[in-house]
Structures are given as structure tokens and as C-alpha cells.
């Protein structure tokens, strides 16, 4: 089953054999032979982005919306270095991405050749693994291995660097076969630990599920098992930013997102619980707040496929290394076989406590006057779009937190946001990747104007491929989150956190051949949103909002979950010297 062909043809063949249907890329000197092969086939669709960073974020959006690895093809030197932010983003958020980069010919490596960069050296710390392929005979095997590594275990980005002479030379193509790689992460959890967790579930008086992106990465079946476990036990469930949608926001047991801008009831429940069941989350610092005051009274169980996540920041009592789906299946099996026991009376009391916290209604705000509150814009967006087959992307900042707070996610793979790295400029290209994967869906990027401008060149891509992505920009003419921190931490000295020269977004849309909508009056908002939704094509929606709105609730840096701030009146002197050095 082996065949002779050029390296370039081999790359395309390997992608086809891996089931790839879309590649996001940008051509250049060192990948011309590959682009020549891309030109001569129809099995793979190539999406021409306008910047390599956009290619990687688009591939991330595609990967998160489909569960399949995203594929990127870029040239050597600047092509590769422009991909670095996207690679780091995908590494932090555990998104499977395969990036193919061109490289100068093998005999010129190390000579400071034109568009040469030490791509494997530069990307070593921001990929799960990378390879420089020096022989055409090794090329197809390496690409198959790259897909294996990107998707198995904790997913992540990989990069294959391919010198131009390797693309031109003829070699033997090897089709994919069951991996012989020594890299075979363990999927099944240890049954002893699982039984210990089940025993803790049976006894718990104040339990909580704390779920993360690992549930979504494990696949839709894991989300189903999670829902079954939550409904069967009746335990409350909270989630990180990355895990939204694994349990439905409309579900009865949902207590909302937790963390720095999470809901009061979720954070208070985390602080007071006696059994904390972490499923596919990693105790990120946005979640834990002050570590020595984090959930002080609880037994902590942690399910994670990556052994290095266990005990990294929080000491775990019941560590379970394995794939979320496999482990949840075993937990359910053991729990059912032991008689489906929970401490129902105590759980009932626990819920009354949670309902007291919920009654504080921490997301409450008042929309009055002629200025749109950003929260109000999102409440209206939610109301008018929730019936649609909807995917939401975001950029990074206040709008991102508001989107997480005010939009409801009913299913996994519907929410694309840069969690770990916090990459401004992520959302727009990600929305392009999502729309490519789901051409008929309503894809909305909730953005801030500053983030959005960071990758605005991708308007060209959206228009070229007639992608009806909706860019819902909450425009406060500020770097809102930076401004908020400057207000709280730096004596209201707003150093460089506003822009004096913003574009006219309607004209900008028109310049690209797209539609622009501007809205500043709360009374016009619903009609304007409907106009955006019904327009068959890309739209930039410039929503002019209150400029000085702060994002609450908030756990200030260096504070504990039960020290949340609920609104403006509480912000006086909240972050002490220790907290002020934290980001």
C-alpha cells in the first residue's frame, strides 16, 4: 500500500487520509510546492486568511466547534512566527491543532537564509510536540503521528516544519495505520480511586461539581454522562469559562460560572462545600482566588487526563487520572451498583443555602436613560438569538466576561473563547473557523472594539468566502478591563487605555463590502439586532455602550471566594499590596 510521490503531494494525501476537509493558510516561498498540490485537488478546501495568527485562531474555532483537529498551512520565517500566538493560545486551552510550516531547504538551514527562522526552536515551548522533517520518506509517517499526538490525551497544538527540498523530493507514502507510537495516554481511571470518590458522593452534605474544558474535549458523550450524573445525584454544578455548555445553562442544577467574574452563588458554594468534584478543570488562578483560602472545608477530587494537573496548585485528596468520559462512565456504574445513595436530606439543606445566595441576584443591573448598558445589550442578544442554531465566540476583556455571564449555553462546542492565554484578537478569526464548519449556523463574535481591531484584517476572509459572521462589538471606546483595573488599582490613572482614533465601523464594513450597523439608543437595539441576524452576510454591529461600566461580580486579586465584590459601592480600597502584583 505504499506509493512513490513528491513530498508536497504526500502532505496533501496525508491530510486527506486523516479526514481533513479544511485547511486555513497563507502561501509563501517555502510552501509553494504544497500550494501547487492544493491547487490541483478538490478534496480539501483551503481558506485564505489575511494573517497567519488569524489562520491558527480560525483553526481553533473550527476545532472547538467540531471536535476535530484544526489544520493550518503557513510559510517559513514570518509565517511561522506569526503563528506563535495562536499556538500558545491552543496550548493553554488544550485545543487540537496541526500546523504545517514551510522551511528553507535543508542545505540552507543555519545560514540565515531569506525567511529562515528556527521554527522548531521557537515553537518548542508553545506546542505539545513539534518535528522538523529532513527526509521525504519520513514525511507522511510524521504527519500521521502529528495528528495522533494533537488529538490523544490532553489535546494540544503540534507543528511539522517541512523544508522546501523535502517537499520537492520524491519518497514513499505510508498511509495511516494504528499508531505504533509510544505516546498512548491512559484513558481509564483507577477503580480504587473511583470507588473512593463514589463513597464520598454518598456521604457528602455540601457537594459541588466543578467542571472545565476537559469535559468538552472528551467529546459529546462525556457531556451526556455528566448530565446524567448531575441529575441522578442532584448535586449543584458550576463550570469554568472553558467548560460552559457541558451542562445546560437552563438546567435545574446549574449555579453558573465560577471564578474571578463568576456568579456569587457559584463562588460561595465553592467556598463552603464539603466535597469538591473537579471534572476536567485545572484550578486556574482565575478560578481559585487566594489559594490558602480556597474551598477550605472540602474533600477535593480531581479528574484529569493530564497527571501534571493533579496537585499542581491545589492538593487533591482523590486524584483520578483518566479521560473524563471514561471516568464518568465508571463513576456512574459504581454508584449505581452500590445502590444510588446520596445524603438527600443534607443536599436539600445545601440547596436552600445556595438559593439564599442566588436570591442576591448578583447579575442584576438597571438599564435606564438613553445609553445602552453592555449587560443590557447581551441580555437582548440572548433573548433574540437563543432559539437559533447558535455559536458564540468572544474576544478578551469585559465583554467576554459579560458574555459568559449573560448568555446561556445549552450544549458543548457552542462557545469559543480564549481562556488561558487571554488573546485579544482571538474571536473574529475563530468565528470564521466556526462558520466554515457550520455554514448554516448563526455565528456571533461578541467583541470589544479594541480586541476586534487586533485581527480586523480578517474581514477580507469573511467577505471572500461569504461567511455571514456577526461581529457584535460592545464599543466603549476603552480597553474596558484595563480601565477597570486602573480604576481599582492605579488611582484612576487611565494610562493608554482608550483610543482617540477609532474607525467608523459602518464605513469600515462597507469598505470591505460587508454590512455595518450602528446602534446607540436602547430603544433601537432589538430592531438593530434583528437586522444583524437576518442579514445574509457578514455584519459589523457597532453597539455604542456605557463607557465606564465595570464588570461585576469580581473577586479582587489576592482575595478568597467569599470576599467577592458585587458592585461599584464595594470597590473602595479592595486590592491590597499583595493583590496588586497579581494580574
Amino acid at each position, binding site marked *: 500500500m505504499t506509493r512513490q510521490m513528491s513530498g508536497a503531494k504526500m502532505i496533501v494525501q496525508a491530510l486527506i487520509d486523516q479526514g481533513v476537509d479544511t485547511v486555513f493558510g497563507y502561501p509563501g516561498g517555502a510552501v509553494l510546492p504544497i500550494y501547487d498540490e492544493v491547487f490541483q485537488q478538490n478534496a480539501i478546501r483551503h481558506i485564505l486568511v489575511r494573517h497567519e495568527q488569524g489562520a491558527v485562531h480560525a483553526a481553533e474555532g473550527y476545532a472547538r466547534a467540531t471536535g476535530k483537529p484544526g489544520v493550518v498551512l503557513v510559510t517559513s520565517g514570518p509565517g511561522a512566527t506569526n503563528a506563535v500566538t495562536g499556538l500558545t493560545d491552543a496550548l493553554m486551552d488544550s485545543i487540537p491543532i496541526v500546523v504545517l510550516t514551510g522551511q528553507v531547504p535543508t542545505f540552507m538551514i543555519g545560514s540565515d537564509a531569506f525567511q529562515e527562522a528556527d521554527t*522548531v*526552536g521557537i515553537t*518548542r*515551548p508553545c506546542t*505539545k*510536540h513539534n518535528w*522538523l522533517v529532513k527526509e521525504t520518506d519520513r514525511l507522511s509517517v510524521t504527519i500521521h503521528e502529528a495528528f495522533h*499526538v494533537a488529538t490523544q490525551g490532553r489535546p494540544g497544538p503540534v507543528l511539522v516544519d517541512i523544508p522546501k527540498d523535502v517537499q520537492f523530493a520524491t519518497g514513499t507514502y505510508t498511509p495511516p495505520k494504528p499508531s505504533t507510537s*509510544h*505516546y498512548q495516554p491512559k484513558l481509564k481511571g483507577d477503580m480504587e480511586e473511583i470507588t473512593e470518590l463514589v463513597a464520598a458522593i454518598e456521604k457528602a452534605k455540601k457537594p459541588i461539581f466543578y467542571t472545565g474544558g476537559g469535559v468538552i474535549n472528551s467529546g459529546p458523550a462525556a457531556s451526556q454522562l455528566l448530565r446524567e450524573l448531575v441529575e441522578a445525584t442532584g448535586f449543584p454544578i458550576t463550570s469554568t469559562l472553558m467548560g460552559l455548555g457541558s451542562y445546560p445553562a437552563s438546567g435545574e442544577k446549574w449555579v453558573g460560572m465560577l471564578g474571578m467574574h463568576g456568579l456569587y452563588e457559584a463562588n460561595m458554594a465553592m467556598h463552603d462545600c464539603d466535597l469538591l468534584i473537579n471534572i476536567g478543570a485545572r484550578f486556574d488562578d482565575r478560578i481559585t482566588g*487566594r*489559594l*490558602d483560602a480556597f474551598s477550605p472545608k472540602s474533600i477535593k477530587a480531581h479528574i484529569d487526563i*493530564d*497527571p*501534571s494537573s*493533579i*496537585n*499542581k*496548585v491545589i*492538593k487533591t485528596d482523590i486524584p483520578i487520572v483518566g479521560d473524563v468520559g471514561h471516568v464518568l462512565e465508571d463513576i456512574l456504574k459504581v454508584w449505581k451498583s452500590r445502590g444510588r445513595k446520596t445524603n438527600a436530606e443534607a443536599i436539600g439543606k445545601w440547596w436552600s443555602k445556595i438559593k439564599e445566595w442566588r436570591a*442576591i441576584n448578583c447579575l*442584576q443591573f438597571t438599564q435606564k436613560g438613553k445609553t445602552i448598558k453592555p449587560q443590557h445589550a447581551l441580555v437582548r442578544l440572548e433573548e433574540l438569538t437563543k432559539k437559533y442554531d447558535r455559536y458564540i465566540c468572544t474576544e478578551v476583556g469585559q465583554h467576554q466576561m459579560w458574555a459568559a455571564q449573560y448568555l446561556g449555553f445549552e450544549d458543548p462546542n457552542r462557545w469559543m473563547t480564549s481562556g488561558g492565554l487571554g488573546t485579544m484578537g482571538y474571536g473574529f478569526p475563530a468565528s470564521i473557523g466556526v462558520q466554515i464548519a457550520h455554514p448554516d449556523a448563526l455565528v456571533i463574535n461578541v467583541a470589544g472594539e479594541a480586541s476586534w481591531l487586533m485581527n480586523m484584517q480578517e474581514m477580507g476572509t469573511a467577505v471572500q468566502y461569504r461567511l455571514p459572521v456577526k461581529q457584535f462589538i460592545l464599543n466603549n471606546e476603552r480597553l474596558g478591563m484595563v480601565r477597570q483595573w486602573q480604576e*481599582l*488599582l*492605579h*488611582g*484612576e490613572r487611565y494610562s493608554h487605555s482608550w483610543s482617540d482614533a477609532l474607525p467608523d465601523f459602518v464605513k469600515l464594513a462597507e469598505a470591505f463590502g460587508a454590512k455595518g450597523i450602528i446602534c446607540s439608543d436602547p430603544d433601537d437595539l432589538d430592531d438593530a439586532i434583528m437586522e444583524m441576524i437576518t442579514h445574509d452576510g457578514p455584519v459589523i454591529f457597532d453597539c455604542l455602550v456605557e463607557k465606564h461600566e465595570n464588570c461585576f461580580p469580581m473577586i479582587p486579586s*489576592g*482575595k478568597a471566594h*467569599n*470576599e*467577592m465584590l*458585587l*458592585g*461599584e*459601592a*464595594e*470597590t*473602595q*480600597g*479592595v*486590592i*491590597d*499590596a*499583595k493583590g*496588586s*502584583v*497579581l494580574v
Partner: protein
Amino acid sequence: MRKAYFMSALKIKKGSTSHSAYNLRPTFSDVVEKHTLAVLVENEPGVLARVIGLFSGRGYNIDSLTVAEVDHTGHLSRITIVTSGTPQVIEQIKAQLGRIVSVHDVHDLTVEGASVERELAMFKVVGQGDKRVEALRLADIFRANVVDSTLESFVFEITGAPEKIDAFADLMRPLGLAEVARTGVAALSRGE
């Protein structure tokens, strides 16, 4: 704006500007231990950079590191790393090493039963008269070999546990120690 809902008494002034390092990490145990790790890796380009990059990128210590191919047909190299840190840090180092795709196996020789550690070192000692005689006499006690000699210098070769080599270095210093080359630790577990 809603009525304020205070949950804690926070009295520090708004806009505090004093800065310090990240110091809010809890410590599971702050006793620093020295561990010897044996890491079996795929012998491929860049693998050492991956291991070293992990240590520098995450701020771990390397006290010594040795590497050589140990299985030519299996393309395996063995990296012996002596590192120090709190028990939690040591566990993290092992887990992080285990995540590297090119790493086949990680063994903590310090906790996995008894092990033997050896290091080779060469010492150039320059001197005349009594000092020269004394250096040679001590070298004999330490079972160091003379591998090069002039009328005014010796090069000694010594093998042993790092502490023995440290002790030998301390003795040679007043006798005209001019140069030292050490290989770093190689280690194996005892028994089968």
C-alpha cells in the same frame, strides 16, 4: 447602584501602588529535597532542549545533568538529572517530564529504592615540593589515578559519589588546584 453588600472588612486604601513578588502560593511543605531522576528519552534532535526548556521555563533547578545514548537500536538516551525542590515541586517536575512526548519513562531514583550514583572528575593540580608530594599521597587515599604528569603538575582522574569528589576538591584547593572538569552524576537503581 444597589445597596452595598459587604462581606469582608477591607481597609487598604484604593490605588495602592506598592509592589512585591507573587508570594501567595501555599506551601505543602517547604523542605527542599535533592532528587536524582533518570529520564529515558527518544534519541532525536531537540530532545535535550525540550527537557532543559521545561526546567528553565517553569523555574525548576538543575544541579547536574548528564545525557548519552544508551540503546542504539531502540534510539533511547538516558538523561540523569539531579534537581532540588520541595516535595510538591519534585512531583510536578516528574509529571511535567512525563508529559513530554519524547519522554518514555521517568524514574525518581531517590525514592524508588536504593541506587548508586557515580561521577567522574578530572583535577589539574599545579605545584612543587611538599605540596606536590602531598597531592599525590591524598590522590592515592582517594583512589584517584594520575592521567597526566609534568614536573610541576598532575591531572588526576577520580570516580565516585559527588560528595567524595567534593571532598577531594576541598583537599586539593590549598595544594594548587588549577582546573576541574566534572561529568555530572550518572545513576542506576541497585539490584535487579
